[in-house]
């Protein structure tokens, strides 16, 4: 389900609107994922505190949203642009790629909460497609 020119422009415009709150969004999405999908906690057993709003969750949420923001910048070549991150997830972190969908869902929930007026069905489909394409690029090196 490749990104059309319209998808890309909708994603870029929406990301422009949310970029000021990116850190908050990232932290909240991660906190929601860890709370609503407890099986995802298995990847963070080295953190002292996995609750929403905790320091490690906030810090890591910023890292994740920063990377997603960068991905918006390389939206025309996600596989190439995310190659190093794919290596990291494939060989070092070894996160089961099924979890990318779970985090994506929680990012959508968080975006809907913070930007209810802007998160129209047209934005929803474009961002959902973008996160799916990003997830596929992230899983590119897995095997």
């Amino acid at each position: 389900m490749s990104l059309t020119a319209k998808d890309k422009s909708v994603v870029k415009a929406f990301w422009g609107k949310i970029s000021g709150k990116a850190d908050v969004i990232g932290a909240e999405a991660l906190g929601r994922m860890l709370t609503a999908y407890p099986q995802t906690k298995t990847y963070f057993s080295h953190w002292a505190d996995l609750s929403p709003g905790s320091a490690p969750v906030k810090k890591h949420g910023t890292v994740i949203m920063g990377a997603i923001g960068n991905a918006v910048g390389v939206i025309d070549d996600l596989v190439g642009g995310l190659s190093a991150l794919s290596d990291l997830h494939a060989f070092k972190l070894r996160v089961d790629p099924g979890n990318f969908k779970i985090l994506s869902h929680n990012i959508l929930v968080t975006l809907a909460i913070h930007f209810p007026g802007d998160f129209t069905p047209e934005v929803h489909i474009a961002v959902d497609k973008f996160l799916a394409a990003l997830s596929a690029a992230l899983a590119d090196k897995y095997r």
Partner: protein
Amino acid sequence: MVDWTDAEKSTISAVWGKVDINEVGPLALASVLVVYPWTQRYFGSFGDVSTAAAIMGNPKVAAHGKVVCGALDKAVKNMGNILATYKSLSETHANKLFVDPDNFRVLADVLTIVIAAKFGAAFTPEIQATWQKFMKVVVAAMGSRYF
């Protein structure tokens, strides 16, 4: 199927109590048809679903959204017995409507997003977790009669 704690039962009832079926039902179903266009395969008789605007304004989609959301009310009122409550609905979707059961999960996820947008920050991570657990049980019950 599931032993809900008292806290879970009251969270689910509280969330559902604040949902206006006449608003959320149409919006959730229309969003599914926009975001996952292949789901339109089940609605050939609904008229114009060619654009997002057409879908969001389609009265048949809106009416059916209310029907679907109305059925969720049964699950909320029979939380201890969701599997039995949805037995015949599951059979209908499997054997008469021929709906791919993956669509139940899709609708549950979109409904959660629509509810989140309505409730805002009041839809806390903890409330989301309980609501999604309830959705998971509903989805499983709807898929339970597919053989």
